[in-house]
């Protein structure tokens, strides 16, 4: 607005001017009304035409008759707009512009005639032609709002993620001196205040393995039943409800169930099998659900093609459905493996204990726990070291935590990677 390459579009009004007027500085119009009528009517006022095309802007300034001064740049006193593409007849405002300069002049003339618009000395009227897609001030404000919104939501997302990443980095930093292969392979010593984490590590391994052997077959087959055999009746609805609720049971209630059902009722006592069964029941619902999802990703048309060739339901499942969904099923199972490794509550009272002395080499080193034995587990070990054992060095403590996190995240990442890889290898 301050840069004015030409003054083609600038017209002057000096109240009380006499003589022939053509709107220039030397011969200004005598009133706003005259200015608008003359500008609107006259096709020979080629300057007005030129203004339309060059700058798309016409100004009308009111000056002192004799002094030839005019207001410098700045916001015009009155701003009007013209938009050749406006669909409706407007009133010159930014939201409802006039559709051409002649229309603008006519409108302004009318306003002046009706005395609704007055131009005093020093004031300026500006009529600008708005291109369709230039931002109005309204839109500029909107896009600022949008950027703000974007940054607010981004900030929220970062607050969810960054603190945890920071914490994990801190843990890694504190644990670093302790992390080594030795740490993983040595048994805890000196009342758990020194040494490594082999005994709990191998204990977690066997716990997860055993619970997997129980949960995976039952869960996968249950998923097969629900997706391939079950019809939509009340029984199926109850089963679905049951699966969903099983998934939502708090982990401590699983522990209570394990104590009541496996430790006491099934006479397993506090043992590896009791804990494994408890963990199995805990991971079951998610295995069922992810199996169903994997199975339902196989299109129905494949099954129908097989049935029409005389294949039985099971043959179809065995030859087409399962082989093409096994990858999704596997991903679901692996994710539950990771979860089983990290859980503490279900094993607290069903078999995990603070300390079991195991050998440092030999068979007992590799296979220390029988199905009836109490065992050590990494998750419980971390709990105990944090809250119950005095004199544990920071690096030992943080090291245990980092190994547990690392183990869980590693298995999860593997499953996620598997899922991404398989998605790229789609067979249909």
């Amino acid at each position, binding site marked *: 607005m301050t840069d004015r390459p030409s003054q083609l579009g600038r017209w002057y009004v000096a109240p009380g001017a006499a003589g022939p007027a053509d709107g220039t500085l030397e011969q200004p119009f005598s009133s706003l009304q005259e200015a608008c009528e003359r500008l609107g009517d006259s096709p020979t006022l080629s300057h007005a035409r030129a203004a339309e095309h060059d700058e798309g802007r016409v100004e009308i300034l009111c000056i002192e008759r004799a002094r030839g001064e005019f207001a410098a740049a700045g916001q015009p006193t009155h701003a009007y707009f013209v938009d050749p593409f406006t669909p409706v007849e407007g009133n010159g405002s930014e939201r409802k512009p006039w559709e051409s300069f002649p229309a603008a002049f006519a409108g302004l003339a009318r306003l002046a005639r009706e005395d609704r618009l007055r131009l005093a000395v020093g004031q300026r009227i500006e009529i600008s032609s708005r291109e369709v897609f230039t931002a109005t001030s309204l839109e500029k404000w909107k896009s600022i709002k949008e950027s703000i919104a974007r940054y607010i*939501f981004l900030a929220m997302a970062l607050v969810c993620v960054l603190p945890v990443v920071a914490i994990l980095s801190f843990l890694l930093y504190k644990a670093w001196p302790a992390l080594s292969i030795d740490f993983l392979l040595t048994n805890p010593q000196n009342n758990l205040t020194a040494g490594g984490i082999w005994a709990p590590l191998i204990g977690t391994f066997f716990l997860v393995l055993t619970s997997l052997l129980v949960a995976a077959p039952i869960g996968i087959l249950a998923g097969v*039943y629900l997706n391939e055999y079950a019809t939509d009746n009340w029984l199926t609805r109850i089963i679905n409800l049951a699966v969903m609720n099983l998934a939502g049971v708090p982990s401590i209630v699983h522990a*209570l169930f394990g104590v009541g059902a496996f430790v006491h009722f099934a006479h397993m006592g506090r043992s590896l099998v009791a804990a494994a069964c408890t963990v199995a029941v805990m991971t079951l619902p998610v295995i069922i659900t992810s199996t169903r999802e994997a199975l339902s990703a196989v299109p129905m048309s494949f099954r129908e093609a097989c049935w029409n060739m005389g294949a039985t339901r099971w043959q179809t499942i065995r030859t087409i459905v399962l082989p093409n969904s096994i990858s999704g099923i596997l991903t679901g199972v692996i994710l539950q493996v990771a979860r089983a490794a990290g859980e503490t*509550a279900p094993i607290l009272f069903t078999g995990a204990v603070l300390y079991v002395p195991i050998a440092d080499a030999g068979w007992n080193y590799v296979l220390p726990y029988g199905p009836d034995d109490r065992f050590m587990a990494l998750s419980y070990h971390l709990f105990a070291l944090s809250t119950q054992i005095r004199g544990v060095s920071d690096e030992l403590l943080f090291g245990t935590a980092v190994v547990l996190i690392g183990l*869980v995240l590693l298995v999860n990442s593997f499953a996620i990677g598997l899922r991404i890889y398989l998605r790229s290898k789609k067979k249909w």
Partner: protein
Amino acid sequence: MSSADIDSVQAPPRSRSPLRVFHMLVDLCEPLVEWIIRICGWSAILFVFAIFFFVIREGSEMLFGGIDFKEFLTSPNWRPDSVVRPQYGILALLTGTVAVTGLAMLIAVPLGLGAAVYVSEFAGPKTKETLKVIIELLAAIPSVVWGFIGYIVLGPIIIWLTGAPVGINVLNGGIILALMSVPIIVSVAEDALRAVPDSYREAALALGASRWEIVLRVLFPAAKNGLLAAVLLGVGRAIGETMAVLMATGHAVQIPKSLVDPVRTMTATIAAELGETVSGEEHYGVLFVIGIVLFVIAFAINLTADLVVKGIRGGQHD
């Protein structure tokens, strides 16, 4: 070709290759296989009822007669070890659970929904994928690790920041639970937002709405069932959490009066005390009753979340 060689398809071939025998056996066993599958399918019901059954069984003595329910639910005096007169009021435990969960949700719901909006509406595809993977990994962090973080890392920070005498309290537990619940809120909410048809967004854009307006005025109302379900599931997770609250909220059985008061939740109480009880004792039975209460609450929340989600499918007509 003559028809003679083709007839061999219909008559069983004479070769007895091991593959053929295997497949024959497998197909003969088909009815058996189908029965095993059927039984596995029914097993889910079995386990849910089994949980209910066994937990009630162990708590049955106390549940059916041993407990004065009025005292149980309204008294803040939890003194199971008292020699004189054991008291089993869980009011303090209930308020502990409510306080910690409430604080956690206060933090996690806005953050989680905001993050979900960012991932769903603003993030570019690469960012979206990365964030989703990160959030999935965060969801996988075990509960005991969170408790460890609360106890060892956050505790001292809280003491340093607030001058409180103890760092494990409602504030600690609330923050930890919030960080734990955020991933599930984000993923369910993001699913719900993604399920809103693009046509809604396009229509709003055509009317000139900014993204901010689209989110607040179009998407949230359209996805409200899914978002509500996300919140409910987050609440469910927080209420049922055991190890993290056990380690992060302290051991004081009291009704909290400020954010830095230590409390005990119901879950933590069971975890802390079951080891010291013997089967058949009163204390043992009462802990199982608390377990039943937890089970019922979790059941109710999950049922509501499920109904709310179904509400979408029932109500939406596109």
